[in-house]
């Protein structure tokens, strides 16, 4: 008798991020295989880009993702600058790094909250998102918008960070540091979280290399890769900071890497702001003409390396734009991490690579044996929460 069950997760998500579609093959409680389908949120951006000018293209790629909404513009500008062969002014370098790092903080916090939500720790969700709000306020003060900052332009940045804004950002950073420290301590000390996340969904170093994982997913498996250090752009070569690495490769390690990275980001922002006080001058170099040719640009987005390729024929519009987002390479690692784990853990393991996940609401289970068996996203979340509750009970702790 065939006792296998297929659980499709997806395709599109009601909660957050891009739609994706997972198919879990389960036997009893255990996941034995997983398959990923993508393309549900295909908006034909690369094609639309061909109808935009180089300046307009930046705003278009900004709208690829609402969470890394400055990563794509930075990578895109890097690509165009590579094509033209210009250097951006020093002041613009610092501003780029500041915006990029602020975004990393808000993105990591957003993820930590959602991870909490997935395992039934809604307190963590609300808590962390509350601390994320001040970061968005800084964004609003500095760039004029909470998301989609529209700061980048080929050759530099569009808006200067004014002298009077610097103390505002600095104060915000002090506050954020205190709060993130509190959250980090709470997360690290929590026995339930440790029981729930440690040793779950381990991605070994070899697998991470074989699947070409990038960003925090790779760094939590002990691979020190980071575009900011490997190929410095913007101001990353001019300031001191460290790469956070963990060896364990489990979900807990990914949480730790992300939370600790926030502190490095704060460090970078502080140094950049200090330099902004002394480094004066232009914020954008004039890009007069875009010659025919090709250019590539990379940026370390919160989720990993973003890669942009731009081809020009000498007109004011690109002939081709190619984008490779980090989730695209991180997603297949679930083939190595999910099989062998229980269904209740699948949600958090998939969420751990910080993909465009959250599609759990539309899960339907089909039992191959009976032909039908419904288990939807709510059920998966429920299973996940139940497990946390059970652990809490065993420890004699009340769940939050």
């Amino acid at each position, binding site marked *: 008798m065939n006792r296998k069950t297929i659980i499709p997760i997806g395709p599109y998500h009601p909660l957050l991020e891009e739609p994706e579609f997972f198919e879990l093959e389960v036997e009893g409680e255990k996941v034995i295989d997983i398959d990923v389908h993508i393309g*549900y949120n295909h908006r034909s951006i690369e094609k639309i880009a061909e109808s935009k000018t180089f300046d307009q293209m930046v705003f278009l790629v900004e709208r690829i993702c609402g969470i890394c909404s400055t990563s794509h513009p930075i990578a895109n500008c890097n690509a165009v600058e590579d094509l033209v062969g210009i250097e951006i002014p020093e002041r613009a370098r610092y501003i780029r790094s500041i915006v990029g790092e602020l975004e990393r903080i808000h993105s990591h916090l957003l993820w930590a909250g959602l991870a909490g939500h997935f395992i039934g720790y809604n307190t963590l969700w609300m808590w962390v998102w509350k601390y994320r709000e001040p970061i968005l306020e800084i964004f609003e003060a500095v760039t004029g918008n909470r998301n989609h900052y529209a700061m980048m332009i080929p050759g530099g940045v569009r808006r200067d960070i004014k002298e009077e804004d610097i103390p505002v950002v600095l104060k915000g950073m002090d506050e954020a540091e205190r709060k993130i420290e509190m959250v980090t301590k709470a997360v690290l000390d929590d026995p339930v979280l440790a029981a729930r996340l440690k040793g779950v969904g381990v991605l070994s170093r070899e697998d991470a290399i074989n699947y070409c994982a990038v960003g925090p997913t790779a760094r939590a498996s002990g691979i020190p890769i980071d575009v900011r250090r490997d190929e410095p752009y913007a101001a990353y070569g001019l300031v001191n900071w460290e790469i956070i690495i963990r060896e364990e490769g489990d979900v807990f390690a990914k949480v730790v890497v992300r939370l600790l990275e926030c502190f490095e980001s704060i460090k970078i922002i502080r140094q950049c702001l200090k330099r902004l006080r002394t480094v004066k001058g232009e914020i954008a170099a004039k890009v007069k003409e875009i010659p025919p040719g090709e250019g590539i640009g990379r940026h370390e987005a919160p989720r990993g390396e973003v890669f942009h390729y731009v081809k020009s024929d000498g007109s004011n519009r690109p002939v081709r734009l190619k984008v490779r987002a980090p989730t695209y390479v991180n997603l297949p690692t679930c083939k190595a991490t999910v099989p062998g784990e229980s269904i209740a853990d699948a949600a958090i393991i998939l969420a751990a690579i910080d993909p465009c996940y959250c599609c759990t609401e539309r899960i339907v289970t089909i039992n191959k044996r009976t032909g039908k068996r419904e288990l939807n996203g709510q059920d998966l979340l429920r299973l996940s929460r139940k497990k946390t509750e059970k652990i809490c009970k065993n420890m004699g702790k009340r769940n939050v």
Partner: protein
Amino acid sequence: MNKLWALKKSIWVYHVCSGSCNNCDIEILDCLTPKFDLERFGILLVGSVRHADVILATGSITRKALPRIKRVYEQMPKPKLVIAVGGCACSGGIFKNGYNIVGPYDKIIPVTAYIPGCPPKPEAIIDGVVKVINSL
């Protein structure tokens, strides 16, 4: 006074997204978190459209999503209120001319209200929902 008055006290919203950049979606979630805290007005985000009074729709509909959007709308109990959140949902936004885009929403399903912005601020979203409630 019409029969929609029952909705005025506590409306439940369901969130549909298709072909958005998910920033609008995050702002909708943001409305629920402590700073804005929609729940104090009795507005609750629910997991199934069968429980919902209002659909908050984001994104410019993609070809693959089209049948799903139609189905979601059919499953919704009457009266069916739809609020388009964000430039994409109102007009197709920056993705309007894409080959995979069939939206915006009002081409597919009746839309009650539009909240423009890219993304609209949480205040704007709350304001939009409140205006819809008041107009009932």
